[in-house]
């Protein structure tokens, strides 16, 4: 498979699957202000997914559109990080996942602005503005809930334990990342990891949360091997396109 295509597709998948999960909160958030805020962030991710998947389709050069890529691939052909597809859980879980990914995206998109792929650089220039806001918002939430009541502290610590093992995958290197960093399409994942860890450790400490010592790195997303939550997500997302193929909507 075309590695450049695959590199962009992965990012598109992350944005799409995360956006899909976040939009589940629409109408169900803890209070009205959060319904609005969460939907704003979800919209940023869906918008980003559209740009990235369209770009991926161009790179692949087989005539696939953003919708072909989103709605007509099977589970094994999706390459998002597993952390994106996990069910939304409670608000603590959602915000913890959000923060860990926002912090990752912040450093990723900062660097991607200098990508040798000019389309990707342009997408990153837009995404970084959104992400700067996202990480500020979710970071504030992590601190407030982490250092809030006993219950919220416990929920945040649980969320952190639950999600931590999925973060290793964010910085794993395979031949696609290798290719991307050699061609200066994307950043060196190791440098990304150092920046991410610095920010995240610092924020979690402020939130009075303890970094889990037990590490149980789980990965598979990049090989199209997913958690069982992914099948249900795709079944829902792709339902109309699958049951009525080839139509305009």
């Amino acid at each position: 498979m075309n590695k450049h295509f695959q590199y962009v597709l992965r990012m598109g998948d992350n944005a799409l699957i995360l956006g899909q999960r976040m939009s589940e909160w629409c109408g169900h958030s803890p209070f009205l202000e959060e319904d609005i805020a969460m939907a704003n962030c979800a919209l940023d991710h869906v918008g980003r997914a559209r740009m990235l998947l369209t770009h991926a389709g161009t790179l692949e050069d087989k005539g696939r559109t953003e919708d072909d890529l989103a709605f007509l691939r099977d589970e094994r052909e999706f390459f998002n990080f597993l952390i994106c597809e996990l069910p939304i859980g409670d608000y603590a879980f959602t915000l913890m996942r959000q923060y860990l990914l926002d912090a990752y995206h912040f450093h990723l998109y900062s660097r991607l602005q200098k990508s040798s792929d000019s389309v990707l650089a342009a997408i990153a220039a837009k995404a970084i503005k959104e992400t700067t806001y996202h990480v500020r918002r979710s970071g504030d939430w992590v601190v407030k809930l982490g250092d809030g009541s006993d219950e919220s502290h416990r929920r945040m610590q649980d969320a952190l334990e639950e999600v931590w093992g999925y973060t290793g995958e964010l910085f794993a290197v395979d031949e696609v990342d290798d290719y991307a960093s050699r061609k200066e399409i994307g950043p060196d994942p190791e440098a990304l990891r150092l920046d991410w860890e610095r920010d995240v450790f610092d924020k979690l400490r402020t939130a009075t949360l303890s970094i889990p010592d037990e590490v149980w790195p789980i990965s598979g997303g990049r090989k199209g091997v997913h958690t069982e939550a992914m099948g249900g997500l795709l079944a829902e997302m792709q339902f109309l396109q699958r049951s009525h193929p080839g139509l305009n909507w």
Partner: protein
Amino acid sequence: MNLLPLWEVFVRTRRGLDHKHIGSLHAADGAQALQAARDTYTRRQEGVSIWVVEASKIHASQFEDNASFFEPAEDKVYRHPTFYDVPDELNL
């Protein structure tokens, strides 16, 4: 249902204009109120600057005071330029 404090939101829609009251929302603190105001009241590029003020911190004139506050200004017509009799052609 327990509730977070009420904040009043003021938005400057573009440079050169005053901040204008646009509505209210509930938030735990100023930072969160600002973010919620951004998400709620500037979704369609309605603003270039936001102020939030905790509603309980606002002092407002009372309806009962209207007569004593505002009506005494009614007979001070000499504060208005039209009060003065000057030649029109000078465009003063």
